[in-house]
């Protein structure tokens, strides 16, 4: 394999809360190749949200290094990080995070606005993205006129529209019923088979088990890294079994 898309080495993020240092992430290392579909799984407090914020360039690490598509993230300025997010990362959030006053189309156009594309080009690209997630007939609806599954599809279209090298999904099925969640997972499968690199952050071992690869975090460290089905089943030393 060639150059990895993501390469993190001894990544750590410490917060100080009331004079005490909380090691939310405490030396994590792994590589992710282009085209992979990786779950980052762990219970709440395991550090997965912190890791996601770092991978998404929304936050910077206390120590360690992070290379994304050839860029040393820790050396970048705030503006450069914004540009990197715009170009390389498509975010998919648990709560969808759509702008309530804007139509589906306008929501999907947002990343292209920050790229400075002309309006008609933006519109055409966004329409294309909405069609690719099966929402060709819902473009002018507002989020409150769409079902949960449809909203998440809009969010996925928004993540895809800028043609990023990485899709970063945070509990994408967390706010959906199981049937709708299933559809979204299938959509991820399709996207992955079309070549998109996907990182899926979740606390559900069942969801992680369906990903080709999973990285399990516990207490800010990597507990296991390997095929999804195996890693998802790992139990930490202090984990409470169910």
């Amino acid at each position: 394999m060639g150059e990895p898309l993501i390469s993190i080495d001894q990544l750590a993020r410490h917060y100080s809360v009331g004079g005490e240092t909380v090691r939310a992430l405490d030396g994590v290392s792994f590589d992710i190749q282009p085209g992979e579909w990786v779950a980052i799984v762990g219970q709440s407090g395991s550090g997965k949200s912190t890791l996601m914020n770092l991978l998404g360039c929304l936050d910077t690490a206390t120590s360690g290094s992070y290379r994304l598509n050839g860029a040393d993230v820790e050396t970048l300025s705030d503006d450069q990080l914004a540009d990197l997010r715009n170009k390389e990362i498509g975010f998919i959030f648990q709560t969808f995070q759509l702008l309530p006053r804007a139509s589906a189309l306008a929501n999907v156009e947002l990343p292209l606005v920050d790229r400075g594309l002309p309006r008609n080009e933006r519109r055409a690209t966004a329409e294309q993205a909405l069609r690719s997630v099966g929402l060709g007939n819902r473009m002018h609806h507002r989020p409150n006129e769409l079902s949960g599954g449809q909203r998440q599809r809009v969010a996925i279209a928004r993540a895809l529209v800028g043609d990023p090298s990485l899709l970063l999904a945070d509990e994408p099925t967390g706010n959906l019923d199981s049937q709708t969640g299933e559809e979204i997972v299938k959509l991820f499968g399709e996207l992955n088979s079309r070549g998109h690199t996907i990182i899926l952050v979740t606390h559900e071992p069942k969801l992680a088990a369906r990903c080709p690869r999973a990285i399990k975090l516990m207490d800010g460290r990597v507990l296991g890294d390997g095929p999804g089905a195996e890693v998802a089943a790992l139990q930490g030393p202090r984990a409470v079994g169910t």
Partner: protein
Amino acid sequence: MRRAWRRTVSEWVEGLRIAVSSLSANHLRTFLTTLGIVIGVMTVIAIVAIIDGLNASFATQIGNLGTHTLYVDKWQWINTRDDWWSMRNRKNMGRAELEAIEREATEALAVAPMAGRATTVAAGDQELSGIRCTGTNERYLETGGGTVAVGRFLGPTDVEFSRSVVVLGAAVADRLFPKVALEDVVGKRVRIRGDPYTVIGVMVRRGRMLGMDLDTNVTIPFTTFLRDMGGKRSITIAVTAAPGRLSQLEDELTGILRRARRVPAEKPDDFSMNRQDQFLKLYNQLTGALYGVAVGVGLITLVVGGIGIMNIMLVSVTERTREIGVRRALGARKRTILLQFLIESSVVAALGGAVGTGLGLGVATLVALLSPLAAAVTPGAVALGLGFSAMVGLLFGIWPAWRAANLDPVEALRYE
């Protein structure tokens, strides 16, 4: 390079679009936010318009005094109480000074005495009291005394022979002969202070100056005035210069008068030369202060309005924290967010400015309709109102916008 430029354009266009959509989503709030600015701009526009109107009407009134004329007088027309006491003891101005000026002043185009007192004028059983009677000569009109509507003005022989002839002010003619056509007033006989006079002309209507009706007067020959009304009072001498030679005339007259009145070299002048622009100067001082107060009040209101805008913008930033987080996650730079909120606060303020300008125009028009003031709205005042309000929006938008731009994206996305 081109890309960066396009990005900037797109930032502005989108900023404006989002601002408009966010403002129109909150009608009532937008309205209340702009209210302060609306009132501020309205006040400034209306007051500036009214003062401009006052200026225009005052300038017209002052125009009744000759522009190139010096009014030589014992009194200084615009004075303080202290001046008044010293002027009271000055020697009266009289025939000797008039004759000296007529004889010696080479810069003078026209010289006319103006002796005056209030008197009664009667015709038939109509009697008018409180009419100003002016005794002058045939050059009076050239010094800015008005124009004759019908008949003729005083001639040299009227003055020479002290004829009992009179030129009526327009209002006097109206009131004494309400049923007679203007042309037929000429030749009528009137009694001034009981003495009979023949009407030889009627003046054109002149309106008012400084609250004084310029049409309730009568004009008779100077010599007749001295005979019938008494010659002990001090007179005014109107002297007209060629355009642009007013100060030369003033110098020349000073010399002539000091000699005629035998003022010792070391003593100050014991006479005054009054001119139209002294009134303008005084007037401008008065309205300047008014102007200052009005603009001050308007500015304070604008600042209060600005604080209102800041308050609402801070609320808006808090409400839209998640939206800001999303935009930052999707790649918006800090600058983009900053610009977004600055545009929004400027648009609110400019909106208020526009509405305030409209209302100010309305108030000014109403004042113009309901009062004799010609309230005039100048484009400058409108530009001032709009410019100031947009600036207030910008200024008071800085802090909320800065706060929005510096939100931590992670925190903002998690904000409930």
